[in-house]
């Protein structure tokens, strides 16, 4: 008996993966970013958030290949002496954490509501779909700003933890709609199929049917959407941080770093903002490419 | 006699990542002008693929990998798509199974008919419209002058199939390939449609290749029938002979399986096993694992079509041995 991952490697999806150079490359990059973000304390040469280790004397050093740079700070330092490379790694950690968490919550919320709307139909369906319509008419950033503002007003003291909570909440609330709609559509189709009717004739309760019969069959497109949405979530988080309502400056994400560095762009210290930007693009691109490959791989017509 | 359509040793393959699948493995038959040939078989036998190959509508990556298809002596399997487009519609018409998707829902049927006529025949638009109205009348659509400007959704299923038949005959083709034209219709409409098809093709001298899994339809409509199994022709011959005196064990088994409306039986005859999948076709004769008359030779060598009474069957049972003993007996 082959182990499960060997079976996956041999299957149609595994074959599609290993014969697609973009998918393999994208997966490698995403994996690299993910692992280094996870093991940040061991991977990063310095800890940029340990104020004691900062040396103002080495502030604003250019990247190592410049004559003034040093290899202890491979990508240079910012205005407070923080090593850019380490800041990148820790920043990516924050970005990925926010991105993955908000997508996970979006999926949970969206799939549940979509399943319920599609299976029960009637006024439940109508209500939920109108809710979706309302949510879609607000731009994500606006909602995030709104929630951030309200959060700050309500809890003026619990700043740091609140910041992350608000951030994740706002991205979640703007992202769940597309899952709900997709799942609702698929549920409407699956509900008519005879295996669902057979389960009803057996006497299985509706909740059980939704969970055990319909759900496994509607998750395919959700997987693709979720992968691509991780990139969107990371970029949204970066935007919010850039605008100042995202991650707090004490634990900066990539967006915060970009904002901080922006001020120094025209004085010639381009590395403070460009490197975080490149990292952001790299992560978003690799995740997007993975999502594209997954969508084609799961499409039965193209196999 | 000059054959209208000749198919010789047609091979259709599908390259997949697990190897090349042979969907049709040496199919040969011909159709005389004005004749109605039935092609019957179960799912996976390759009958629809044969029709698609002839019309030139094989879906890639499927491709013709061997053999020839000749229309009035001219090869059509190796034509460029532009050339095939001229032949398709003008000399070969097609009728598909689902009348709902065979017609473009956005255009009136008049427009679809006149478009076909104008593409293939050298007539003025006014003449084309007259021909279209006449076609609709011939296919039994009432109030043709009005209904020509209606949209497909305004017709019922049976009416729509009549329009599809009119469309197939619009450019006056010599051959009509009909792929399961009555399967999606109710029983009472089926009878009307097959009567219509038979009559109208006879009137216009068009030959028909009727692909179906329904033996009853074949019995009522066709002159000759080809029985397909696992991508090959198992038996071919006049309809009455194939049905009542089948020479191939598969045909014989199939005939016995069909529940007969006029007779009661305690237990239906069944052929054990199932048609092999394309990647599991056995060596020798494709039917031998399910055949109760299989000999050693059937496991090794694949039989070609050979004369068997009034039909031709691909079965070693009917091989005529050229031994001295037989000659002696004949003397």
């Amino acid at each position, binding site marked *: 008996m082959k182990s499960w991952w060997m079976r996956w490697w041999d299957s149609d999806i595994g074959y599609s993966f290993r014969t697609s150079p973009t998918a393999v490359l994208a997966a490698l990059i995403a994996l690299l970013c993910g692992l280094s973000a996870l093991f940040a304390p061991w991977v990063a040469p310095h800890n940029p958030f340990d104020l004691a280790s900062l040396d103002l004397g080495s502030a604003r050093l250019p990247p190592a290949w410049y004559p003034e740079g040093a290899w202890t700070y491979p990508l240079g330092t910012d205005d407070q002496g923080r090593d850019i490379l380490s800041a990148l790694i820790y920043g990516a950690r924050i970005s990925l954490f926010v991105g993955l968490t908000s997508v996970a919550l979006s999926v949970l919320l969206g799939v549940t509501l979509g399943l319920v709307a599609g299976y029960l139909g009637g006024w439940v369906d109508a209500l939920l779909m109108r809710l979706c319509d309302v949510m879609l008419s607000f731009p994500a950033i606006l909602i995030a700003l709104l929630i951030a503002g309200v959060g700050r007003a309500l809890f003026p003291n619990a700043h740091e933890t609140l910041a992350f909570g608000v951030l994740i909440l706002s991205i979640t609330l703007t992202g769940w709609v597309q899952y709900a709609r997709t799942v609702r559509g698929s549920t409407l189709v699956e509900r008519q*199929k*005879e*295996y669902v*009717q*057979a*389960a*009803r*004739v*057996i*006497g*299985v309760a509706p909740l059980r049917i939704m969970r055990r*019969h319909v759900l*496994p*069959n509607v998750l395919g497109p959700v997987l693709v959407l979720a992968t691509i949405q991780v990139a969107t979530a990371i970029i949204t988080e970066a935007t919010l941080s850039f605008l100042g309502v995202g991650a707090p400056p004490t634990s900066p994400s990539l967006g915060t770093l970009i904002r901080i560095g922006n001020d120094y762009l025209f004085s010639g210290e381009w590395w403070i903002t460009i490197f975080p930007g490149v990292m952001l693009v790299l992560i978003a691109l690799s995740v997007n490419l993975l999502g594209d490959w997954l969508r084609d791989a799961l499409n039965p017509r193209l196999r | 006699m000059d054959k209208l359509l000749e198919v010789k040793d047609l091979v259709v393959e599908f390259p997949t990542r697990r190897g090349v699948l042979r969907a049709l493995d040496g199919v040969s038959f011909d159709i005389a002008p004005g004749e109605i040939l039935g092609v019957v078989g*179960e*799912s996976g036998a390759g009958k629809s693929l044969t029709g698609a190959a002839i019309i030139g509508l094989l879906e890639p990556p499927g491709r013709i990998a061997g053999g020839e298809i000749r229309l009035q002596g001219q090869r059509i399997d190796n034509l460029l798509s532009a050339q095939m487009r001229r032949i398709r519609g003008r000399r070969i018409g097609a009728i598909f199974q689902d009348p709902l998707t065979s017609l473009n829902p956005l255009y009136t049927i008049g427009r679809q008919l006149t478009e076909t006529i104008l593409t293939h025949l050298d007539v003025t638009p006014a003449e084309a419209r007259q021909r279209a109205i006449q076609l609709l009348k011939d296919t039994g659509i009432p109030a043709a002058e009005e209904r020509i400007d209606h949209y497909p959704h305004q017709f*019922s*299923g*049976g*009416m729509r199939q009549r329009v599809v038949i009119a469309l197939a005959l619009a450019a006056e083709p010599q051959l009509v390939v009909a792929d399961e034209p009555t399967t999606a219709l*109710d*029983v*009472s*409409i*089926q*009878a*009307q449609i*097959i009567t219509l098809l038979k009559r109208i093709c006879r009137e216009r001298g068009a030959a028909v290749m009727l692909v179906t*899994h*329904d*033996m*009853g*339809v074949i*019995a*009522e*409509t066709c002159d000759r029938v080809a029985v397909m199994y696992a991508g090959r022709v198992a038996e071919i011959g006049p309809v009455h002979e194939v*049905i*009542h005196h089948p020479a191939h064990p598969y045909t014989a*088994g*199939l*005939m016995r*399986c*069909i*529940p*007969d*409306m*006029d007779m*009661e*039986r305690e*237990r*239906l*005859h*069944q*052929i*054990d096993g*199932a*048609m092999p999948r394309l990647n599991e076709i056995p060596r020798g004769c494709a039917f031998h694992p399910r055949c109760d008359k299989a000999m050693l030779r059937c496991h090794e060598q694949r039989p070609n079509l050979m004369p068997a009474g009034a039909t031709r069957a691909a079965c070693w049972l009917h091989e005529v041995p050229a031994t001295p003993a037989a000659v002696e007996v004949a003397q």
Partner: protein
Amino acid sequence: MNTRVMDDPAKAMTPGLEASVGSEVCSPRPALPQPLVVVEDLARTFDVSAPWLNRVLERKPRQLLHAVDGVSFEIARGQTLALVGESGCGKSTVARLLVGLYAPTRGRFLFDGQDAHAAYASAQRRQLRRRIQMIFQDPYASLNPRWRVEDIVAEPLREHGLLNDAAALRERVGELLRSVGLSPHDMVKYPHQFSGGQRQRISIARALATRPDFLVCDEPTSALDVSVQAQVLNIMKDLQRQQGLTYLFISHNLAVVRHVSDQVGVMYLGRLVELADKRTLFTQPRHPYTRMLLDAIPKLHDTSRARTPVQGEVPNPLNPPSGCAFHPRCPHANARCKAERPVLQSMGGVRVACHAVQEGRI
């Protein structure tokens, strides 16, 4: 076979006639067993109107679809009743009414003497669902593609708590698979690894898991090839004999029906037009629609016979003709047929709903 109907004419009467005779209900003879399935004037209407807002804005009327418009029949234990008809006749809706997927808008379904729909709506539904099961038409959609065969067949057992021990479940599933001609080793596979005929057999195994008394079969072999169909029909007949099952067999294929059924009911636009035992229906069809159906089927033998011309198509069920639904296509229709709907009446062992037959015109 249908002598019970003859001996107990009151039971055969439809409500209309019963009212005119007087409301006597003859008590059944003590010696005769009650039929397992008794359906009385069952009807189901669907509201297919446009959404409320559209109706108000565009002033569209309410549209009601009378999918089933008053059918009555009985099935004795161990027998098979076949319901035949063309598209739109309501036979699939009847099937779904009997298994409780729909609630009736009118009429009753008595299963083993008790009101089934009351049971479906109450706490007794579990008991009932153990005894009534269904087999569907599409072998590709009737099994969950993500479940293993073992879980599919074991689901009714798990749901009703009949067997809880994993080993016992596996054994019972193996036994069920063997009874339909599959191997117990097949239970670890997924549905896509099987052919259409084999999947239909898995459906049958699942339906028989709770040892039901009554199986509703909705076109179980229509999607199968002829040779596979023969296998599945033979299995169904064997199982019926072995386990004393009662079948309601829905089909549009009269040849198949001839093979499997004991009684046949012909439906047209939601109504039963003829109900007779098999032999009588096929040799002496009474109703003009039955005759037309039997005539229209292309036959393997006797292909040169003359046919009565078939007129028209099945009308739109949203707008059925007045009086007798078949009158626009019937060669024997008169003024009464256009105005008055015929009731299903017993005539010489056969039930027919036709004025012409009842008046003796044909």
